[in-house]
C-alpha cells in the first residue's frame, strides 16, 4: 500500500486496555442468547453445560469417567467458548473505542436556527437534537456544526479532523462540489448558512458510529451462506457422534469386551470435529474487515458493500487525481511561424494571470521559469479579464486594445472564424500533434492572430501502471473516465496501462457506461464527488463518495472515503477480497484439522472394546485420556493462535484465481492437516510432564 492514512483515532489492535475489556466481555458473552446466534458455538455451549453436569455427577461419586478427566475436559470446553468470545470482543473493542471517540465529537449544541435561508434572518436558539431536514441554521467561526447539511450561503474554513483525522482545515462554500458539511465538525473562520439534510439519529456521524460499533452489522449474504455450510458440517458431526453411542454399546455386546464410550469422550469428540475454529472467528473476521475499512478511512454503509467490493469486475476511475497527478501542467510553448517564443510566453502569461485554475497557474510558472517573465499586477481599468465560460470555452484578458485569448483547439478555431480569420494550418497541426501525444494543446491568440500553442501535460502517477497490471491479474478491468477528447484520452490510457477509457465523459455517458457493463452482469465500482456523479454513484454496485464531495454524492454512494483519495477504490477492492479469503482459508483449515483429531480420539475412545484400533494412534499419545484431552486443548488453543490472523486478514496477493487457490490450499489445507498432528503431540507430551496424562 503506497498511500498512508491517518486512522481516525489511532486505536491499536492490542492495547492493554482493549484486551482487558475484551476479556471481561468474553464472560458477558457467555449468555445463551448471545451464543444461540452462532450455531457452531451454541453446540459447544450445550456441550460445556453437559460436561459440567457430568462433572458434578462425578463429584457425587457416580461419575461415568474419572472426575479429574471430566473436570479438565469441561475446563477446556469453557475455554473454547471464552476464546471465541474473546476474538469477537477484541474485534468489536477496536470499533467501540473509535465509536466512543466519535461520540465525543457529537455533543448536543445549541444551533442558531434561521427563519429563512439568509444570514440576517431571525434566529431562534434550538438544540441540535431538535433540528429536522429542511431547517436552516447559521454557523459562525468557533461554532460546531449542529448536523449534516448543505451550505446555502457563505464560505468558511472548517476543521473536519473529528471525522477524517485530517487536521488541515478545508473550505466549505455554497454551490459547487464543496458544499457538504458534516455534523460534529467546527467552523474556524467566517460563517455559513446551512440547510440541514438529516434528522437526528440519521446523520453521517450516527451512521459512522453505528458502523464502527457493529450495532447495525447484519450478517452479509456470504456470511449467511458460510454459516449454512458450517451448520451442515456441525449437524453431520453431531449425528456421527450421537450415533456413536449406540454403535459403541452394540460393539461392546458383539465383541464381548470393554465399556461403551462415555458421554464425556463423545462430547470431546464432537467439539473437536465441528468447525469451531472458523465458527469462533467468523464474526471477528467480519468485524475486522469493516474495521480495516475504517482504518483506511473509508466508511461503508453496510458489510454487504464491503463484500461486494471483493466481487468487482470493472473499476471506473476518474483520470484526474486517480491516474494522473491532480492537474495538467504547462510544459512547453510552441510559437506559430514568425512568432517569437518569448512573445508567446508573455502573452500566455498575461492571459493566465487571472486564471486561478492549476493549469492557469502552471502557465504563469512556466513563463517565469523559462523566460524570467515575472508576474505582473495589472492595473485595474487597463486590464479586463475575460473569464472562462461554458459558451466560449476560452478565457483571457483585454489590455487596452490587446485582446489575448487562450482556449481549446475547436473553440479557438470557431472564435477566429467568427472574427473573419482562420487558424494557420501549421498551428493546427502542432496542436493535433500535442493531442496525439496525450497532452492538451491550448491555443493563444492576440486579436485575430494565433500566436502559438501551450502544451499542457498530464503527469501519470508513479506506480499506477503496476497497480493496474495487478488489477488485470486479479481479473479486474480498469476503465479511465475523462472529459478529454478521445485522442488525448487514448494516449494517457496507454501510458497508464488502463484497459479502456471513456473520453469526453458526461454524467449521462458515465451512467450509460455503468448500465452497459451491468447489463453484461458485471459488477462496477466507481468513485465520485460531484452532484452530477450522484446518478452514476447510485447505479454503481460499489460507489465510493469523496468526503469532500456533495451531500448528494455521499448519499448516493455506499461508502465514503474520508481522505477523499480516489485511488482508495483499489484498496477497497482488496479489503473486500481479503475478508472472503480469510473466511475461506480458516474454514479449510478448520475442516482439515479434523483428520488429526480423529487419529487422536478414535483409538482412545474404543481402546477397551477393540484394542487393535490402537494401531491408528500414529501420534503415539500416552494414554486414551491424554489423547482426548490433548485434542480438546489443541482445539481451544488454535482459536487464540489464529485471532491475529482473523483480525489482520490473510495477506492478499494479486494473483490469478488458480494460483491464489493453489497457494491458500497448500497453506491452509495441507497446513491444516499437518499442524494439529504436531500440536496435539506436543500438548500430550506436556500433559505427561505435568502428570496429567
Amino acid at each position: 500500500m503506497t498511500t498512508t492514512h491517518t486512522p481516525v483515532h489511532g486505536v491499536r489492535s492490542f492495547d492493554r486496555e482493549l484486551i482487558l475489556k475484551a476479556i471481561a466481555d468474553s464472560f458477558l458473552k457467555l449468555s445463551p442468547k448471545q451464543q444461540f446466534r452462532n450455531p457452531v458455538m451454541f453446540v459447544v455451549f450445550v456441550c460445556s453445560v453437559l460436561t459440567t453436569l457430568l462433572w458434578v455427577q462425578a463429584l457425587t461419586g457416580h461419575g461415568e469417567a474419572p472426575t479429574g478427566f471430566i473436570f479438565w475436559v469441561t475446563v477446556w470446553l469453557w475455554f473454547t467458548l471464552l476464546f471465541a468470545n474473546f476474538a469477537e470482543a477484541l474485534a468489536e473493542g477496536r470499533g467501540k473505542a473509535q465509536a466512543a471517540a466519535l461520540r465525543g465529537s457529537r455533543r448536543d449544541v445549541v444551533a442558531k436556527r434561521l427563519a429563512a435561508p439568509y444570514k440576517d434572518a431571525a434566529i431562534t436558539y434550538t438544540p441540535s437534537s431538535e433540528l429536522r431536514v429542511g431547517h436552516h441554521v447559521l454557523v459562525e467561526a468557533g461554532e460546531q456544526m449542529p448536523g449534516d447539511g448543505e451550505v446555502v450561503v457563505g464560505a468558511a474554513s472548517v476543521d473536519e479532523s473529528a471525522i477524517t483525522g485530517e487536521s488541515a482545515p478545508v473550505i466549505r462554500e455554497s454551490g459547487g462540489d464543496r458544499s457538504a458539511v458534516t455534523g460534529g465538525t467546527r467552523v474556524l473562520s467566517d460563517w455559513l448558512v446551512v440547510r440541514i439534510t438529516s434528522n437526528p439519529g440519521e446523520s453521517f456521524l450516527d451512521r459512522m458510529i453505528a458502523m464502527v460499533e457493529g450495532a447495525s452489522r447484519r450478517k452479509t449474504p456470504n456470511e449467511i451462506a458460510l454459516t449454512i455450510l458450517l451448520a451442515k458440517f456441525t449437524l453431520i458431526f453431531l449425528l456421527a457422534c450421537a450415533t456413536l453411542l449406540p454403535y459403541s454399546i452394540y460393539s461392546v455386546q458383539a465383541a464381548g469386551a470393554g465399556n461403551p464410550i462415555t458421554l464425556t469422550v463423545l462430547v470431546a469428540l464432537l467439539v473437536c470435529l465441528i468447525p469451531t475454529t472458523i465458527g469462533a472467528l467468523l464474526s471477528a473476521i467480519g468485524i475486522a474487515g469493516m474495521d480495516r475499512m475504517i482504518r483506511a478511512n473509508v466508511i461503508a454503509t453496510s458489510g454487504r458493500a464491503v463484500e461486494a467490493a471483493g466481487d468487482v469486475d470493472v473499476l471506473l476511475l476518474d483520470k484526474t487525481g486517480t491516474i494522473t497527478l491532480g492537474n495538467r501542467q504547462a510544459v512547453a510553448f510552441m510559437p506559430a511561424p514568425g512568432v517569437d517564443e518569448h512573445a508567446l510566453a508573455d502573452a500566455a502569461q498575461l492571459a493566465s494571470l487571472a486564471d486561478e485554475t492549476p493549469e492557469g497557474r502552471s502557465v504563469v510558472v512556466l513563463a517565469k521559469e523559462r523566460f524570467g517573465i515575472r508576474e505582473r499586477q495589472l492595473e485595474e481599468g487597463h486590464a479586463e479579464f475575460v473569464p472562462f465560460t461554458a459558451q466560449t470555452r476560452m478565457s483571457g484578458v483585454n489590455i487596452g486594445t490587446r485582446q489575448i485569448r487562450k482556449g481549446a483547439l475547436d473553440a479557438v478555431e470557431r472564435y477566429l472564424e467568427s472574427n473573419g480569420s482562420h487558424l494557420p494550418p501549421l498551428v493546427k497541426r502542432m496542436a493535433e500533434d500535442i493531442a496525439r501525444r496525450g497532452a492538451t494543446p491550448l491555443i493563444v491568440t492576440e486579436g485575430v492572430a494565433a500566436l502559438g500553442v501551450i502544451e499542457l501535460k498530464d503527469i501519470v502517477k508513479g506506480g499506477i501502471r503496476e497497480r493496474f497490471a495487478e488489477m488485470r491479474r486479479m481479473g479486474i478491468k480498469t476503465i479511465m473516465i475523462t472529459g478529454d477528447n478521445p485522442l488525448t484520452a487514448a494516449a494517457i490510457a496507454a501510458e497508464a496501462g488502463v484497459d479502456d477509457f471513456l473520453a469526453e465523459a458526461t454524467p449521462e455517458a458515465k451512467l450509460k457506461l455503468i448500465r452497459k457493463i451491468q447489463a453484461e452482469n458485471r459488477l462496477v465500482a466507481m468513485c465520485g464527488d460531484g452532484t452530477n456523479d450522484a446518478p452514476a454513484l447510485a447505479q454503481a454496485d460499489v460507489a465510493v463518495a469523496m468526503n469532500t464531495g456533495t451531500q448528494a454524492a455521499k448519499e448516493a454512494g455506499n461508502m465514503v472515503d474520508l481522505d477523499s483519495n480516489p485511488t482508495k477504490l483499489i484498496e477497497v477492492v482488496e479489503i473486500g477480497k481479503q475478508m472472503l479469503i480469510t473466511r475461506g482459508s480458516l474454514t479449510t483449515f478448520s475442516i482439515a484439522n479434523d483428520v488429526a483429531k480423529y487419529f487422536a480420539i478414535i483409538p482412545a475412545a474404543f481402546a477397551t472394546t477393540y484394542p487393535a484400533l490402537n494401531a491408528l494412534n500414529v501420534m503415539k499419545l500416552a494414554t486414551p485420556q491424554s489423547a482426548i484431552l490433548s485434542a480438546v486443548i489443541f482445539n481451544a488453543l488454535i482459536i487464540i493462535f489464529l485471532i491475529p490472523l482473523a483480525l489482520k486478514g490473510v495477506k492478499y496477493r494479486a494473483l490469478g484465481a488458480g494460483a491464489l487457490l493453489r497457494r491458500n490450499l497448500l497453506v491452509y489445507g495441507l497446513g491444516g492437516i499437518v499442524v494439529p498432528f504436531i500440536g496435539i503431540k506436543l500438548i500430550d507430551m506436556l500433559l505427561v510432564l505435568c502428570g496429567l496424562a
Partner: protein
Amino acid sequence: MTTFDIFQVVLFLGVLLVLVKPVGAYMAMAFSDTPNGVNRVGGKLERGLYRLAGVRSDEQMGWRRYAIAMLVFNMLGLFAVYALQRVQQWLPLNPQHFDALSPDLAMNTAISFASNTNWQAYGGESAMSYLTQMLGLAVQNFLSAATGIAVLLAVVRGFTRRSTDSVGNFWVDMTRSTLYVLLPFSLVIALLLSSQGVVQNFKAYVDVPLVQHTTAVETVKDAAGNTVKDASGKDVTKQTTVTTQTLPMGPAASQIAIKQLGTNGGGFFNANSAHPYENPTPFSNFIEMLAIFLIPGGLCYTFGSMVGDRRQGWAILATMLLIFIPLALGAIAAEQAGNPALHGLAVDQQASALQAGGNMEGKETRFGIAASGLFATVTTAASCGAVNAMHDSLTPLGGLVPMWLMQLGEVIFGGVGSGLYGMLAFAVVAVFIAGLMVGRTPEYLGKKIEAHEMKMASLAVLVPCALVVICTAIAVMTPAGVAGVANPGAHGFSEVLYAVSSAANNNGSAFGGLSANTPFWNVLLGVCMYLSRFLLAIAMLAMAGSLAAKRHVPPSAGTLPTHTPLFITLLACVVVVVGALTFLPALALGPIAEFLMSVR
C-alpha cells in the same frame, strides 16, 4: 496384485473412456430440442406418444411443478409394483404359482425399485412371477433410471438457463430418456448378453438329474422349531440325498440389460450377477460392468456439452476416476492378498497359472479376483448394486471399499443421472470453499452460489449421511434389528452398516449375512430408500430453480476455473473428506477393527 489384475482394470477403463464421448454426444442430441439426427428419426414416435398422453411438449415447468410431476409419477409406479406383487397369484405368466408377497416385503420392493435402489429382500426365482418381474420390476428399472436423468437435465438447465423460472418439461425428459437412450441401449446389451447364454424364455422351471448326488444332513425340528434331542441328549439328524436340481428359467436377459444400464441392480435371480444364467462368461461380466458405467460416464460428457464447455464434463469425470481408480485397485489388492488368518497354514493363496490365488471365498471361479473385485467397486461406485460375488465374504478392507463408496453418497459415477447431480451438489460446496479462498463470491458455471444454493447442496449431502448413521443406530439398538445379524463382533456391525448404507444411498447391493426380510428391516430400509432418493432430488430441483432464475456472470481472470487439475483435486478432496469424516467412527467399529484384529 498380479499384472493380469491390472490389465483387466486398464482394459475396462480404456474401453469405457473410448465410449464416453460417442455415448455422451449421442445423449446430448437425444435430450436436445433442436432438430438433429436423433429426433429426426424418432420424432414422429415421440410426438405420437405426447398426443397419446395429452402432453404439451413445448410447455415449460417451474421447479415445483417439475418436482410434483416427478413425485406423483413415481408414486404411481410404486403403487403399481406393490399391487402387482400382491395379486400376482391371480395373474398370468406365473408358471411356478408363486403366492402374493407379504405387505411389508411388497412395500419394500416397490420403494426399492421406484427409488432406483433395487434392494432385494426377496429371491427373484422363488417369489416373483414372470409378469411381476417384467411388468413391475423391469418397467420400474426403466422409469426410475429415466427419472434420474430427468432430474439431472433440470439441474443442468438451472446452470444453462438465464433469468427464467422454468427448468424444462418432466414428461418430455422422461420420454426422451426412455425412448432414445434406455430402450435402444438395453436392446443392444440384451442381445450381447443372450449371445453369452443369459436365458430369455417363459418356461416353467426345469428339473434336471444331478450328475453327482449330494447328501445333506440336517437337524430335525419339532413343530415349535426346537431341535429334537435323542435319549443321550444329542440332536436328532436326518439325511437327505439330493438327486435332482431345479433350474430357474425366465425372461432374464431383457431385464438384466436395463438392471445394469439403469444402475438398478435388482437381479432376476437371487444370486444376481453371480448366477450363471444371469452372467455366464467373463465377457458377459465385462459387458455388465461396462453397462453400469456407460450412462453415468457418458452423462458427464453430455453435461459438458449442454453447459457449452466440454472441459467441465471431463473435469467431473476425472474427479470420479481420481477416487475410483485407487479404490478399485485397493479392493483388488486386498482380495488378492488373501486371508491373513490362513497365513502360515498349509493353504496356498498365491496366484499362479492354475489358480487366481487370494481370497476366493464367495467368488465365482469363472471371474476370479480382479473381475470380482472390480465388479464390487463398479457396482458400489455407481449406485447399481448388482453383485457377482458375495460381499460378505470379501476381506475386511476389500469390503470396506464398496461400503465406503456407497457412503460417499453415490457420486462416483453414481446412479444414472442421480450420481451426476449428487456430484454437482458436492461441486457447489467445493466451489463455495474455493471461491472464498480466491476472494470472490463463489460462482459455478457462471451462476453465483449463494445462501439458497448452499442450503440445498448441504441438504443433498446431508440427507444420505444422516439416514445412514441414524438408521444404523436404530438397527443396532432394537432387538428386531439385531436379530437379523448373522455374525458376532465387528463383522456383524459391518453387515448392519452395509445394509443401511446401501439403502440410504440407493445402491441396493447386499453385504449378505443379514436376514433382511423381516417387517423391521423392510420398513426401516424402505423409509431410507424413499427419503434419500426423493428428498435429494427435490433439493436439487429447488437448487435448479433458483439457479435458473439467476443471471449469468461472465468469467474473468478472477473467476476460479473449474476444469483444472487443481479444482479436480479439490472436488475429490471434498467428497472424500466429507465421506471420511462422517463415517470414520462407524467404519472403525466395523471393517477397520476387523482388519486390524485380523493382521495381529
